[in-house]
């Protein structure tokens, strides 16, 4: 059991209460209400239709694929799918909001309550999901190209977002880290969001409040807007929680407000107070009918749901006898789990797990690569593991081979053949080799026989050295024991 995350001041302990509103971009070729493309990084204003730019008389038409994606995500969050939901207009003026309103869902979202299970060092914890709704993204205002004017890029205008609202169930920056990663993992498994935070596919508004340990009532919360990396979320929470504790300790009151996180100064600052909050004048969008589908529609989508991380983890534990810790690592990312499953198709499970989470992860880490960019393919790693398993090479040699494989995904069988790394397992050959070691080290043999048994390791080492590391260590052990009697 790890220690709770608490902030201590003047002998008092404060608990931090966190709720997240995650904005996840729906993985879809086209936008929520138009047929424009959604590709990231395209030239500004090249993916803009008349609907996205809000020309007179243009009307939104719902993209059914995005609806299915939202339903899938809802299923992945063990959530209630609402057969009837309503699109509302959220009215406000901004240069990158062409319609003068964002189409969103207010009172009747497509997905209701659900939950996400986190695997924490202290055990598992269930985080409640309040709702998931669909909405349009805005465009982008660019202030730093033209000295006098703000430029607007509408490529993102109208792109479908899922806003996933958690209950205030998170209690530490670390839980937020695990929560975001779990959400991302679920959506990647489902293929509903690529979770790419650098490209802004996943960002969050973070609600933070503090209260004295043991208190039931929540404190007044502040919302930190639009944080786009897990690291920044954690930094922002730390800073904000401490700021709030400081205020309370000085006898002050927390103002409910919206704050911005300044990543350079590592601090949050006020954006607008509750009194200045926008009145968004939500009302049902009269251009769109209520979104309705029957149970059968949802059932059919359920059939397309792949095995999700939690299920996969259970299967790995039960079927392959992996530890929960190992299983968790292997399922945390869809691509890792795919790699693992590809390796074990022809190889020993335990060895595969060890090699992937050990050598392979170290290599990827060192080269700063994702598993899909792995320089060693699952097919070749599988071959390497088989070479170890059938005794062709030792684990130690395997590490050398592994290093060589990384250069252009070489076939380990070829490397072993080419470099003559095959393990020496012929007892006669090994006996000769050991005899040489004994002859060359008569003084040590004397010492050994007079009781210095620690020297056994020395003989093993010498034998391995003479063999160029290729000798089968188990056989060396056996023969040495016989010879040194």
């Amino acid at each position: 059991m790890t220690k709770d995350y608490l902030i201590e001041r003047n002998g008092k302990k404060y608990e931090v209460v966190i709720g997240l509103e995650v904005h996840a971009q729906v993985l879809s070729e086209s936008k929520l209400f138009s047929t424009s493309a959604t590709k990231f990084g395209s030239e500004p204003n090249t993916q803009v239709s008349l609907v996205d730019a809000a020309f007179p008389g243009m009307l939104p038409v719902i993209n059914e694929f995005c609806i299915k994606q939202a339903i899938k995500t809802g299923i992945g969050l063990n959530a209630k799918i609402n057969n009837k939901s309503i699109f509302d207009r959220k009215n406000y003026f901004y240069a990158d909001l062409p319609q003068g309103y964002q189409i969103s869902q207010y009172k009747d979202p497509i997905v209701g309550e659900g939950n996400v299970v986190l695997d924490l060092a202290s055990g598992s914890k269930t985080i409640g999901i309040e709702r998931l709704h669909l909405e349009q993204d805005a465009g982008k205002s660019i202030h730093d190209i033209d000295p006098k004017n703000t430029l607007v890029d509408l490529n993102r205008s109208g792109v479908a977002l899922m806003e996933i609202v958690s209950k205030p169930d998170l209690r530490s920056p670390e839980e937020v880290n695990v929560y975001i990663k779990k959400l991302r993992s679920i959506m990647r498994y489902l293929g509903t969001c690529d979770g790419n935070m650098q490209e802004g596919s996943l960002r969050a508004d973070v609600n933070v409040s503090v209260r004295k340990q043991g208190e039931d009532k929540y404190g007044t919360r502040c919302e930190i807007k639009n944080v786009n990396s897990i690291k920044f979320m954690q930094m922002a929470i730390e800073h904000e929680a401490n700021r709030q504790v400081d205020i309370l300790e000085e006898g002050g009151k927390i103002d409910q407000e919206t704050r911005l996180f300044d990543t350079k100064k590592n601090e949050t600052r006020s954006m607008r107070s509750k009194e200045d909050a926008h009145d968004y004048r939500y009302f049902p969008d009269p251009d769109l009918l209520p979104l309705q589908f029957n149970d059968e529609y949802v059932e059919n989508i359920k059939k397309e749901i792949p095995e999700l991380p939690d299920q996969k983890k259970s299967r790995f534990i039960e079927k392959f006898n992996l530890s929960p810790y190992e299983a968790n690592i292997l399922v945390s990312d869809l691509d890792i789990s795919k790699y693992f499953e590809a390796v074990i198709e022809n190889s020993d499970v335990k060895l595969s797990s060890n090699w992937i989470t050990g050598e392979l992860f170290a290599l990827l880490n060192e080269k700063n690569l994702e598993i899909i960019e792995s320089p060693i393919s699952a097919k070749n790693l599988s071959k390497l593991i088989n070479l170890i398993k059938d005794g062709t090479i030792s684990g130690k040699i395997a590490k050398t081979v592994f290093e060589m494989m990384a250069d252009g995904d070489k076939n380990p069988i070829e490397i072993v053949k080419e470099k003559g790394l095959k393990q020496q397992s012929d007892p006669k050959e090994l006996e000769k080799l050991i005899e040489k070691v004994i002859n060359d080290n008569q003084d040590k043999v004397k010492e050994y026989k007079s009781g210095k048994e620690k020297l056994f390791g020395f003989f093993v080492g010498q034998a391995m050295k003479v063999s160029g590391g290729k000798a089968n260590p188990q056989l060396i052990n056996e023969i040495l024991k016989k010879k040194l009697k």
Partner: protein
Amino acid sequence: MSNIIDLTLSELVSNIKNKKISSNEATSEYIERSKKSKNLNTYIEETFEDALKKAKEFDSKPDLNKKLPGIPMAIKDLFCTKNVKTTASSKILNNFIPTYESTVTQNLWNDGAILLGKLNCDEFAMGSSNETSFFGNVISPIDKDLVPGGSSGGSASALAAKLTPATIGTDTGGSIRQPASFTGTVGLKPTYGSCSRYGIVAFASSLDQAGPMTRNVNDAALLLEVMSSFDNKDSTSVDFKRPMYSKDLSKDIKGKKIGIPKEYRVDGMSEEIEKLWEDGKNYLKDCGAEIIDISLPHTKFALPTYYIVAPAEASSNLARYDGVKYGFRTQGNNLIDMYEKTRSAGFGDEVKRRIMIGTYVLSSGYYDAYYLKAQKVRRLIKNDFNNIFQKVDAILTPSTPSSAFKIGDKSNDPVSMYLNDIFTVPVNLAGLPGISIPAGLDKKGYPLGLQIIGKSFDEQNILNIAYSMEDKINFKFNLKEWWMND
């Protein structure tokens, strides 16, 4: 043969089909007359040269299977027309040229019609007299001091003055039927979902419908047939089997039950209107229909409901006119300043009034009391109609509480202006079809209309009833061409 401009749309179509008249002849005649009629201020944008070119093209290879073969037509400037300036009669769109065509107008052109130009209307279709246009008020050909009604005032005026053989308008609370009634013409608002809203500058999305404005019922049936289509670019468009309205037009309404709602007998209703309504009933009886007194109990709430729902939607629909992307812009010191200056200068008073009302009724703290309540009342109004349509096939009411009023009479009194829509507004709130047909003249000799309201998608039925009544009414108005220049 009579003059080309005196022919109804259907007559002109058959003359072109019989090759008695060419598209070029018809187009030229209408252009000549339009040019001599500038005093009415009906046109905002003329596309005469292009129209003549298209007419000649048509004549060189006439496709006589089209329903509107080479028919020239001027249309309300609320429909976006590709490469032709579309302003919604607002300064804020004064320089706006769409790169796209509205579905309804595209349907017209696909069936052979040719655009003569864009017709004046109330700014963003907000008005009942065509006095709110940035391009000045429209004058009715009925009399020189008279408003043509609104918001499709330019359309009604151009139609009545024979500057176009037929036209199309939009109707959010009566904008087709009221001006039709004021100008002695026929105006039909179809069921919500019958005509696509794609490419029509939006006023109030849940109420807006395009419809035909014509010289007689037969023409309305023909034009509706062309305009109405299922359109997947409009999510509120309804996919139903659209009848051949003009082909199926029939005067057999024997046994039809027509309801007379007592709530439409409003306080202070003039004797003329009473008599008009009474005459209407008698005509229907003559046709073999049965008259039934009915009640639509929530009628009195329709006007206040409308003046909450429509401005609410408008306040949001008009947010896009912000000077950022297209249209008129006044430079400002910053974004907010630019918005304020642009919208202050770009919108007229009536539009601003409605944006403010709409913003107010949607504001937090007022939403429940106004917008939400209005939505509930709207549902009750709809239910009134649904219930009564179990008993009757259609409803007969006056189109307006009076004949056309004088220019300037009501422009400073919004409430009395809004009261003009009292008989037309419930139809929009319920999404039903309604048609206004000329039914008589008042003491001053100005036209008065009767409205027939039908069940959803039962346009054929109200067209048939209107068609039968038209015959009995035999409406005549002696149009003196006082406005014409040489």
